[in-house]
């Protein structure tokens, strides 16, 4: 049986004031993890933002399955220096259930963001996106600042995304992409 297409990009050229990336096209099917590789500044993050509607699509089309839900984990999320929001409160923002959070997050759930390290905050944001009910998860350099245990937890979660969901994974770590993605697309300017 053919899998459901969640996203279809066709000859997309995207950017801001001027085009940054493209033309590029691919289909994202349910159950798939697609990797986007390429050098710094090649436009991988811009392509993710074109999918969410934050960057401009100059030409080409982005088709979405009806009622598609998307969550986007940003590269280098800013850790607020003084915000008493708890890990569990951030985790629940996207609809993930803190009670069912992976074990690696348990120590962070009752901890305020302001006392977290950059790596802990990155792990929390990444897991919140992956464990949310969104059908498509866009992950931008999720391995930044993560140590070995956190990388293992992320890998485990990526292996169990479910048959109805899909992930687009941006990373400059080629080994990480190769071990998690059925398809890797090289993005070049």
């Amino acid at each position, binding site marked *: 049986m053919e899998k459901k297409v969640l996203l279809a990009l066709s000859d997309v050229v995207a950017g801001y004031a001027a085009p940054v990336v493209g033309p590029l096209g691919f289909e994202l099917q349910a159950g798939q993890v697609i990797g986007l590789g390429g050098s710094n500044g090649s436009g991988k993050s811009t392509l993710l933002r074109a999918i969410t509607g934050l960057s401009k699509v100059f030409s080409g089309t982005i088709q979405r399955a009806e009622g598609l839900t998307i969550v*986007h984990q940003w590269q280098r999320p800013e850790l607020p220096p003084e915000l008493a929001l708890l890990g569990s409160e951030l985790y629940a*923002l996207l609809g993930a259930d803190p009670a069912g959070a992976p074990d690696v997050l348990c120590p962070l759930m009752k901890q305020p963001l*302001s006392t977290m390290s950059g790596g802990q905050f990155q792990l929390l944001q990444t897991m919140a996106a992956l464990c949310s009910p969104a059908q498509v998860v866009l992950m931008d350099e999720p391995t930044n600042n993560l140590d070995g245990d*956190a990388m293992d937890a992320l890998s485990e979660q990526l292996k169990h995304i479910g048959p109805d969901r899909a992930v687009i994974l941006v990373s400059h770590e080629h080994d990480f992409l190769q071990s998690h993605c059925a398809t890797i697309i090289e993005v070049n300017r």
Partner: protein
Amino acid sequence: MSEWLLFDPMFRVPFLTGLALALALSLVGAWLRMRNEWLAALGLSQIAAAGAMAAVWLHGPALLGAFIAAAIAMLARTTLPRIGNNHYALMILIGWSATLMIGSMMDHGNVAGETFLRGQLYFASTQHLVTALILLTVVAVTYRWLSPRLLTARFFPDYHQANRIPVWPYRTCFALIVITAVVIGTTTMGAFPAFAMLFVPSWVGFVIVDGWQRSVIASMLVGTAAYLIAFVVAMLLDQPFGPMLTIVLVLAGTLRFFTARRRRIKTIAVDDLHPY
């Protein structure tokens, strides 16, 4: 004599206006701090003061002038692709200079300018009280709807766009709340005291307790307690209310130093348990 003034019916409207504003402004301040936009409050309050001055110069209602000026500044803010502290600093400079320039063109302009910068709570009218109560009601009613949307936009900035959820309802609601809070705060408490009420309570509240709801409640308690102390002390000592409120809020800021140690100890303990 001052003790008796505390219970004078003449001061009931100013007292209740200030109390409603203390609760509302400290909560709005928590939202602004969470969005890292607390400097916007000072920029808008200075612009509102200039608008109020312009309205008085044109023989119009000060409240309306302040609202129009703040709304124009807020609208200009939304048209800029990236807004930051540089723009808010420009707002402060424009508002301050415009207030004093307009004042120099008026009879008793210095007094009027000083009033909007320093505050005139004791002269708050029923119109001010009604506006403050409407603001407090709107803030209380929309809190549970607005907070998760603002928090989601803070940590996942394109979540709403990505899911085709219209952003204009919550953005417009938030903008109107901020404008109204700043305008009514500026025209009653004064530009700097209103800014202090938006800035200090959450500065303290965000470090003395953990958790979003609790830190918002803590911010409101700090703001309200500071207001009550300032109102009573200003009356008893025959001092102007605006500067007294600002001083009390600044003193409340010292509560941070008592909690900073607790936070440091906690951070060390957490790091020991989870060295990564």
